[in-house]
C-alpha cells in the first residue's frame, strides 16, 4: 500500500507566531472546560467562546509575556469573549449578587457539614453523588460565584491568580469563593436529602 506523499502536515506547525503552539495550544482543553461552566453547560456556545478566545489570543500574542502563566492569560481573554458574545447576541447576562462575608460563609458551611456528618457518620454524603448532579449544582450558581469557584477549585488557581484574571481585590475573590462553596454544599446536601442518601435529624 502506498502512502500519500507529501504526508499531510499537522496544521499547527504552519502557525507563524513563535511559542503559540507550545504555550497556548496545550491550554485549549482547560479553556474549553472553563468556557463550558461559564455557559452553564452549553457546548455549542462554549465552542464559539473557545474559537473567539484563541483567535484573539493569537492576534494579541505579542502582548503576552512568554512563560508567565499562559492559562490565566487565556482565561482572562475567555471571560471577555464570553461576555462580549453574550452582549452581541443580546443574551441574558446574569445580575451581580451582593458580596458575602467570608467568615460567615465558612461558619454556615460548617453547620451544613455538621448536620451531614451527624446524619451520615460512615461516609461523606457527597461521595454518593453523581458527577452530573454536582456539575448541575455548580452551573446553577450565580456567575460571579460560579466562575470564581471553577477557577479556584476545578482549575486549581490560587486566590492571587483569580484576582488578576477577574481584576478584583483578593478579599473579594475570597468572599465570592466562600459563598460559592457554601451555596454548593448546601445545594448538594439538599439534593442528597431529597434523594434519600441522607436522613437528617435521625438522632
Amino acid at each position, binding site marked *: 500500500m502506498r502512502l500519500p506523499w507529501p504526508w499531510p502536515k499537522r496544521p499547527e506547525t504552519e502557525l507563524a507566531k513563535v511559542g503559540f503552539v507550545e504555550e497556548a495550544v496545550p491550554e485549549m482543553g482547560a479553556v474549553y472546560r472553563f468556557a463550558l461552566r461559564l455557559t452553564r453547560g452549553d457546548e455549542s456556545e462554549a465552542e464559539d467562546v473557545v474559537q473567539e478566545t484563541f483567535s484573539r489570543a493569537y492576534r494579541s500574542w505579542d502582548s503576552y509575556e512568554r512563560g508567565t502563566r499562559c492559562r490565566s492569560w487565556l482565561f482572562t481573554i475567555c471571560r471577555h469573549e464570553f461576555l462580549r458574545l453574550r452582549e452581541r447576541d443580546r443574551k441574558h447576562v446574569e445580575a451581580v449578587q451582593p458580596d458575602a462575608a*467570608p467568615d460567615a460563609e465558612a461558619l454556615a458551611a460548617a453547620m451544613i457539614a455538621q448536620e451531614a456528618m451527624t446524619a451520615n457518620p460512615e461516609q461523606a454524603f457527597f461521595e454518593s453523588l453523581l458527577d452530573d448532579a454536582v*456539575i448541575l449544582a455548580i452551573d446553577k450558581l450565580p456567575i460571579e460565584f460560579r466562575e470564581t469557584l471553577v477557577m479556584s477549585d476545578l482549575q486549581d488557581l490560587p486566590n492571587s491568580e483569580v484576582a488578576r484574571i477577574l481584576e478584583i481585590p483578593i478579599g473579594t475573590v475570597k468572599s465570592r469563593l466562600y459563598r460559592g462553596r457554601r451555596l454548593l454544599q448546601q445545594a448538594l446536601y439538599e439534593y442528597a436529602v431529597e434523594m434519600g442518601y441522607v436522613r437528617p435529624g435521625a438522632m
Partner: protein
Amino acid sequence: MQSGTDLTQCHKVIAQLWAYIDGELTPERMDEIRAHLEMCHRCYPQYDFQRAFLAFIARVGDQPLPRQLRRRVFERLLAEERGDTVA
C-alpha cells in the same frame, strides 16, 4: 483526648478552615491551626470533611476537548494568518 481547646479558638479555626486548606494563611497561622486540629475533636472532623469535599469537586468536570473544535480553531487561525476575511 484533651478537651482543653476552648470554643473561641474553635470558632476562629472553623472560620479559617478553607483558607487553611487553600494554603492562604501566614506560615505562623498555618502552624497554629495545624496544632489545634491535631488535638481538637470538634474541629478535626470539620477539616477532614471540607478537605474531602474540595478534593471531590476538583475531580468533577473533566470533559475532553472535542476534536472537531481543535481542528476548527486551527483552520480559523491559519485563515486569519493568510489574511482571509472571516465572516
